[in-house]
């Protein structure tokens, strides 16, 4: 089971980056715009923009290995590592959750003095693809004494 303490950051955040590496160890990542999970299968689906995800998808098809860094504006952050399962269309619920998370993030950015236009430029295009992977390892990335520690899993 994916640990309870990560679920809030994953489903109410999930803004982050999905990393990958090619067979010759060249890395690439793409932005994630929230995520969902399947507790029964220990899988996570990251919401991405397909027009930016090409290099990552190429790597995942070749090597299957995933790193997913995500967090909340509070700085609570985690990194999940695992194996690529596949891609799929996002459900209406997932798109609605992504819209909610992106709107909250845009509000956070504008509260810090960033213009609404800039926030819209970064987060204004809704995701159109889900990249699913099976979670194998979880690391705490929140700055502080626990940073880098592996969370017990399974």
């Amino acid at each position, binding site marked *: 089971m994916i640990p309870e303490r990560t679920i809030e950051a994953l489903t109410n955040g999930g803004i982050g*980056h999905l990393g990958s*590496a090619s067979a010759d160890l060249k890395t690439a990542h793409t932005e994630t715009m929230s995520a969902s999970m399947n507790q029964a299968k220990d899988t996570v689906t990251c919401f991405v923009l397909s027009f930016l995800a090409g290099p990552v998808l190429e790597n995942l098809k070749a090597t299957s290995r995933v*790193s997913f*860094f995500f967090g909340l504006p509070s700085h609570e952050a985690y990194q999940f590592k695992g194996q690529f399962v596949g891609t799929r269309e996002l459900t209406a619920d997932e798109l609605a959750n992504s819209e909610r998370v992106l709107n909250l993030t845009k509000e956070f950015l504008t509260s810090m003095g*960033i213009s609404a236009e*800039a926030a819209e430029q*970064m987060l204004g295009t809704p995701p159109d693809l889900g990249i699913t992977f099976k979670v194998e390892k979880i690391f705490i990335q929140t700055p502080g004494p626990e940073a880098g520690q592996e969370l017990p899993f399974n």
Partner: protein
Amino acid sequence: MITDEHQPCLQGMFPSWITTCSADGEPNTTVISQIWYVDDEHVALSHQFFNKTKKNISENPRAFATIVNPGTLQMYNLELEFDHSESEGDLFDEMDMKLEAIASMTGMSGIFKLLGADLYKVKSLKALGA
């Protein structure tokens, strides 16, 4: 390759992200507070701890980073390759001084000691969506 357009992204006003990979092919993605401008073909990362990024780079010099313009939030992707590490000189002193200033403001003076300025060659730099 790095122009005036990219300079605001390298001031530490907005976090950057980096993905590295171990020798056995496991990627690692994390956030970093700043990527430093060195010259139009090189950037630097601070080495303060022997973390996973540092370990991966010692095994495989390739990295991929995203920087953000704090004014426009335009993002840029950089393909990087580790070049060398410096533990003295102007760049090291500048990075050390800034890190110490941040540490002293957060009550962490002397804890986040700079061990090295790790220089990377910028292999490519591309605006997202371009």
